[in-house]
């Protein structure tokens, strides 16, 4: 490369990227993929995680005991409570809208105090969740019954005045120790969080960015079949510049989409991606890897429809292998080793570091280094292959 040629690399890359994007958006469907598609992804994420889709438990009945039980149920966090009338509840359970229904007599609190017991009716829907929820519901009502029934029993046994007994029992109940349970998975990971939104969102983001950027392969193949790539090579433009320029357009698009998803999901659903600068650097490098892969496929394949199929396969395959669909924690150790052959797994690791452990850019330097190496290797192979292809005939 001449000194003169080197000085022109940046403007040339910029020109190629710019016209690549101009050409891309003249195809109207691409407007959809770039601007609408990420919104759809965010919406899917939102539906899946932003909104609570816990099973519903219907409760019919009034009074202190029922209120207390309903509150305890809500506090478990695993169900939503709907207060309703008996006949309506029967319908809701019958049509599986409500997973489990509980019908308590209106004077349940009184009965507990008077007899120390009460009869509840539990309605189970035909869903699989009904059996799982049943235990949770039973426990909630049992614990709600403890205080009133102890009051009833004590008063009957001691003959003391009811208000006095209630006060003693209430104080005793409050003084009981709280038991908190932390669930832990092998490897010390926190069970609540390991299937959390952040990880799934990061996986989806990587999968999508990679897939979308890979479409740059078809664009390169088009330039080749139009004869334009060869003509570029006849100009004072090195094959490296051509590869960078052809890749840069899609790189920008991938990056734009990723940042867009990160920002919108953080604002709308409170997704915690962690340090924004680190995340953007990470996405930038990852999209560069994808652009390099796109150029390699574009230099290897001869026909853009064929390439479209191959890129989807590669995009999904590497994504699955790299843990963007299933958490890497569920992989066997062999598979985890294999996963490290994909750029996705390194990026995921970096996302975890930044998002969950509050890491900064310094903490993910190793992953960024590996990703950069991927990018350089892909781009280098693409340049080599493109030169061979363009100068053969």
């Amino acid at each position: 490369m001449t000194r003169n040629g080197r000085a022109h690399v940046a403007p040339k890359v910029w020109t190629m990227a710019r016209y690549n994007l101009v050409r891309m958006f003249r195809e109207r469907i691409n407007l959809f993929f770039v601007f609408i598609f990420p919104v759809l992804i965010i919406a899917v994420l939102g539906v899946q995680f932003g909104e609570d889709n816990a099973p519903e438990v219907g409760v019919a009945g009034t009074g202190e005991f029922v209120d207390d039980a309903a509150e305890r149920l809500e506090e478990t966090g695993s169900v939503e409570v709907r207060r309703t009338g008996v006949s309506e509840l029967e319908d809701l359970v019958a049509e599986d809208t409500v997973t489990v229904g509980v019908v308590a007599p209106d004077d349940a609190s009184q009965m507990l105090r008077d007899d120390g017991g009460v009869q509840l009716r539990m309605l189970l829907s035909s869903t699989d969740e009904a059996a799982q929820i049943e235990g949770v519901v039973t426990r909630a009502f049992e614990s709600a019954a403890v205080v009133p029934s102890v009051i009833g029993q004590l008063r009957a046994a001691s003959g003391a005045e009811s208000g006095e007994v209630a006060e003693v029992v209430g104080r005793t109940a409050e003084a009981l120790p709280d038991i908190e349970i932390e669930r832990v998975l092998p490897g010390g990971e926190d069970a609540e969080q390991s299937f959390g939104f952040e990880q799934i969102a990061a996986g989806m983001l990587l999968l999508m960015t990679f897939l979308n950027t890979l479409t740059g392969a078809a664009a390169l193949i088009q330039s080749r079949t139009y004869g334009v790539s060869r003509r570029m090579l006849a100009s004072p433009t090195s094959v490296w510049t051509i590869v960078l320029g052809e890749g840069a357009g899609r790189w920008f698009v991938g990056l734009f989409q990723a940042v867009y998803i990160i920002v919108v999901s953080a604002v709308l659903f409170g997704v915690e991606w962690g340090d924004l600068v680190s995340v953007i650097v990470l996405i930038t490098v990852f999209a560069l890897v994808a652009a390099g892969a796109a150029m390699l496929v574009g230099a290897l394949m001869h026909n853009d429809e064929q390439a479209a199929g191959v890129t989807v396969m590669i995009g999904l395959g590497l994504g699955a292998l790299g843990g963007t669909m299933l958490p890497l924690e569920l992989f066997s150790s062999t598979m985890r080793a294999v996963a490290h052959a994909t750029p996705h797994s390194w990026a995921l690791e970096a996302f975890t570091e930044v998002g969950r452990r509050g890491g900064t850019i310094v903490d993910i330097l190793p992953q960024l280094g590996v990703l950069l190496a991927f990018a350089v290797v892909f781009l280098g192979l693409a340049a080599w292959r493109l030169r061979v292809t363009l100068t053969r005939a």
Partner: protein
Amino acid sequence: MPCSVPSRGRTSGSDGRMAERFPGTIIVSAVNDPLVEAAHLYKRFDKLQAVDDVSLSIDPGETYGLLGPNGAGKTTAISMIAGLLEPDSGTVTVAGTQIKPRSTQGREAIGLVPQDLAIYPDLSAEENLMFFASLYGMSKRDARARADEVLEVIGLADRRKERTSKYSGGMKRRLNIGIGLLHSPRLLILDEPTVGVDPQSRNAILESVEALSGGGMAVLYTTHYMEEAERLCDRIGIIDSGRVVAEGTTEQLISRVGENDRVRIEVTGSVDAAIGHIRDISGVVEASTEDHAIVVMADDGSRHLPAVINHLVDGGAQVGSIEVTRPDLEAVFLHLTGKALRE
């Protein structure tokens, strides 16, 4: 007219022209160096020797034609000269820089117009031009100014904003040429630029090539249309099966082959008496009769025409239409290779 440039030894020819153009200047020897020098180029594809020891040199302002049939090796030779194909052996120097596929050096001296269209169909003519201008390192301002000029030259100024997929074949070809001109290269390589173009566009293309070479640009032009080669080219190399079998001006090539003019005269009445006299005219090589016509082969057909007609009239024949055919490159090619230029 470029074609009227006399036969030329490389140095003497360019000396003369330089002196004419810049009277009083001292000509430094570097100025006289040919702009393009391709030496002993070879290229083999599997079993096929596509280019077999091709050497050529082109002076600044000269239009050099490579004339040959399909598959002769024109595109292969040109690709090596433009640095798009690595020769098996041989070297190419353009404007003093050796051209190599792995280096971008010397490329700005060359404008390549490939045989197959090399334009973006989803960009307009203007955008295509601006795109390539940037690849040739032109600034935005220069690019804009040059694009305007080029669009005028190729006659697309009024359609500049339209996507080229909507252009006619001829318009696309013109843009294909325009991109090659954009950065005002010192050498313009045109690979069969008129194939598949209607006569009107074709003429426009030829005219612009003439204008450009008049402006001092060296042109390397391949074609299998001998009329184009004759019209445009100062010097022609006839290429067949990868070898340049003859090289020179049209006149040189024709005289080298030693072909004669052919004069065909339609006659009524007897020619038996006249034919002997006609054969005796000095310069006439042969005279024979066809049905209702006499055919005379002579070194300079039109010069002998009055004498031939006199003999015919004296012999009592009446003369109808007369046709003089000069030997052309087609005949030269047939003579040299035993093949027709166009099959």
